[in-house]
């Protein structure tokens, strides 16, 4: 075994031990399922009602547009059940002048749809940074929100030790939109640009559907051009009640389940060992325990309830930003150095995705794995050194997620 391999194995073991919180054995496993059932945060009837809002098709009379990407939450977050991800992507663009990233007029989101042809947003030829971002899965979002900042910071701190300094996840402190002046470790979105589900959903409500709300009261623009002429509603178009219920819905979703039959197979069980031993699990963290029940998070605005607190989850993500060579060139909250970094894609629910990486450019898991470079270079060397059987076991494991 090569020395670095030994280091990695040791690091993986250490990582495994560190990643397994002391309370893990005491914490209950979070419920999982693609079954459309509440995780217990709210009653099933309330969940069903909230899901109707999640699937509600918005119209201009209800504040849609004038520029937007979709008419409902479920238009993008629906696979295999409401709240999941999908193949729908959002277009983003900007300019890199060799030194810094420059946002285009109106921001990096280039809206694909408009209520009037004159408002159509487009990518200018001069903008040399262009990317698509797949809609992320939101199932299990309540557990992610309930992870204490300290837990993510600890993961970030130990990664260099686990990898000879090669892997160094960036915890991005982002603004909590609902509490001016307060920040928290980001965890939602491809750039971990939001730390709370309320912030995340409120921005999606405005940015993706064009429905202004109390947290995001200003309309999207069409490549920086004002849309007032076509805006029929006074802002904010929603006083926040709908965003609050959508947030309640996401908090109540169960985590994506594994394919139980596959996961129980010998290959998948062995593949999980390979996954950890090669160092994949340094970033794709397998196990995290959420904050204790009654912990105040989101700057004290949300008390972790029994349904979400003290829960063991298996997101296979550290929710930190890394440069693995597939970055999209966009800078959001993480500063200039985050230009080519992306949040570690949570692998729970991997088997429900037909397109992989942030832009959907990888169409097989194997292809997505091969695209890992940068911080993942040494781990990739380990993967290349695996025997055919080990590789088969690894992908069987990934197929079970």
């Amino acid at each position: 075994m090569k020395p670095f391999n030994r280091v990695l194995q040791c690091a993986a073991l250490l990582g495994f031990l560190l990643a397994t919180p002391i309370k893990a054995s005491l914490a209950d496993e979070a419920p999982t399922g693609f079954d459309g059932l509440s995780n217990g945060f709210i009653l099933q009837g309330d969940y069903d009602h909230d899901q109707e809002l999640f699937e509600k098709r918005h119209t201009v009379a209800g504040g849609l547009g004038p520029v937007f990407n979709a008419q409902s939450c479920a238009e993008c977050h629906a696979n295999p059940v409401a709240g999941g991800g999908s193949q729908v992507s959002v277009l983003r663009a900007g300019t890199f002048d060799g030194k810094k990233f420059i946002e285009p007029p109106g921001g990096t989101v280039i809206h694909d749809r408009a209520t009037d042809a004159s408002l159509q947003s487009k990518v200018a030829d001069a903008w040399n940074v262009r990317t698509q971002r797949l809609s992320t899965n939101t199932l299990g979002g309540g557990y992610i929100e309930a992870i204490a900042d300290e837990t993510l910071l600890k993961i970030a701190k130990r990664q260099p030790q686990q990898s000879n300094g090669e892997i160094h996840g960036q915890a991005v402190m982002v603004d909590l939109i609902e509490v001016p002046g307060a920040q928290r470790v980001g965890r939602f979105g491809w750039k971990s640009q939001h730390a709370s589900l309320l912030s995340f959903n409120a921005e999606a409500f405005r940015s993706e559907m064009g429905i202004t709300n109390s947290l995001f009261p200003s309309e999207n623009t069409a490549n920086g051009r004002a849309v007032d002429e076509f805006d029929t509603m006074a802002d904010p178009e929603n006083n926040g009640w709908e965003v609050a219920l959508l947030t309640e819905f996401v908090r109540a979703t169960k985590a994506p389940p594994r394919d139980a039959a596959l996961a129980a197979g010998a290959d998948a069980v062995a593949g999980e060992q390979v996954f950890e031993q090669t160092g994949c699990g340094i970033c794709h963290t397998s196990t995290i325990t959420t904050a204790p029940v009654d912990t105040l998070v989101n700057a004290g605005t949300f008390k972790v309830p029994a349904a979400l607190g003290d829960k063991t989850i298996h997101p296979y993500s550290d929710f930190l930003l890394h440069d693995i060579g597939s970055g999209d060139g966009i800078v959001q909250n993480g500063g200039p150095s985050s230009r080519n970094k992306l949040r570690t894609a949570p692998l729970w629910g991997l088997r429900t995705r037909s397109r992989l990486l942030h832009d959907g450019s990888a169409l097989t898991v194997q292809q997505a794995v091969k695209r890992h470079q940068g911080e993942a270079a040494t781990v990739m060397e380990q993967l290349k050194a695996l025997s055919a059987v080990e590789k088969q076991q690894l992908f069987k494991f990934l197929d079970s997620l």
Partner: protein
Amino acid sequence: MNKSITKSSFICVILATLSVTHGAYAAAPIRLPEVVALVPTGGLVFSTALSKKRNEVYAVDARNKMLYVIDGKTNTRKEKATLDLQDAVVNGIAYNETTDEILLVDYAGESSRLLVLDRKTMEFVGSPIALDSLHAAKVVIDEATDTAYVSNMHSGTVSVVDLKNQSKIADIVIGTGAPTPAGCNPWDSANPCTTPGGNPLDMKINPKTHKVYVASYTEGTISVIDTRTNKVEGARIPVGSQPNGMGIDTGTNRVYVNNWQDGTVSVIDGDTDTVIGEPIVVGSGLQDPLHCYEAGKLDACKSWGSMPLGPIGVNEDKHLVYVASSNDGTVITINGKTNKVVGEPVHITTGPLVPGGCANFGACTQGSSAQNVIYNPKTDRLYVVSLADAWLMVLQGQGSKTAAPPSTHNH
């Protein structure tokens, strides 16, 4: 003659006879309410309560901060009983038939309070009961347990108050709870909220089933509290937009809910706590285009519809339901047996609001809003507020006019 044809004809005759008989029964005319008196209130009355025992109506004048006692016999104010509420800003009011006390919800100051008033002496009993809540709104009483339930709009809760010991014993979270961020005020632009919370507003109690129904104004749902456990029972019941008033027919165990921005009334089956059928369109009905109010502009609607507002009166003996249309200035009668509107609306104000929908914007130039129906089963009297007219209208439930009988031809 073919025997089967004879038999069929006989059955048809029987059925036709039964149909006529049934039709005659069903066609028994429903008498519509009729205005019998007008009581000047002198100010803006948003809340009323009824004492069946004393045959009195209590009306809180928010403008002049006075509590008026109205004699149900003479339809006049009992001036000697009028109480100056001084610094209190009273929203909710209820009368306790058992203890002969009037409960007043005061939301002045930083924390709301529940005031208990001895009707006999018109003096307050004990100290105000601290609710530690923001903008308490309405109150209902479970007389069997001497417990009051107070909705706290800006705290997103219902407070449970032990009236015997004059202390709050619990807070029950309604809908998504408190607005965020903590301490915000949805009505203060200097201290705005990012989410409005559950906004519990009107409540009704069904003492037979031990349930309190709570309307979540912003979330369009009704929550059900079990008074035996003081916990929310079951999932929220989705109704229409901005539910703000309710009525219960305890005989049929039906709950009627005003959906202010929809121009409709939802009906809930109290046995299952689920909505029955489609919402009943009342008065001038729905907004055109639907939900145009969401645009937040007075000119966004071609029609603002009826906008039913405030508590609903229920005649449990005849299963008639009375709804006030704020925009039309009318009282509408619903037949609780069929859940259909019967007869023409009864005008109780100087006219409909002009421009329509102006109540949303405080921009009314004419007319008066009809709201808050209470029904006294002992006297068959309805009491309805005509807000801008500063009147409390008194109607005879079974007036001289009848609704056109329903057709006996079902096909």
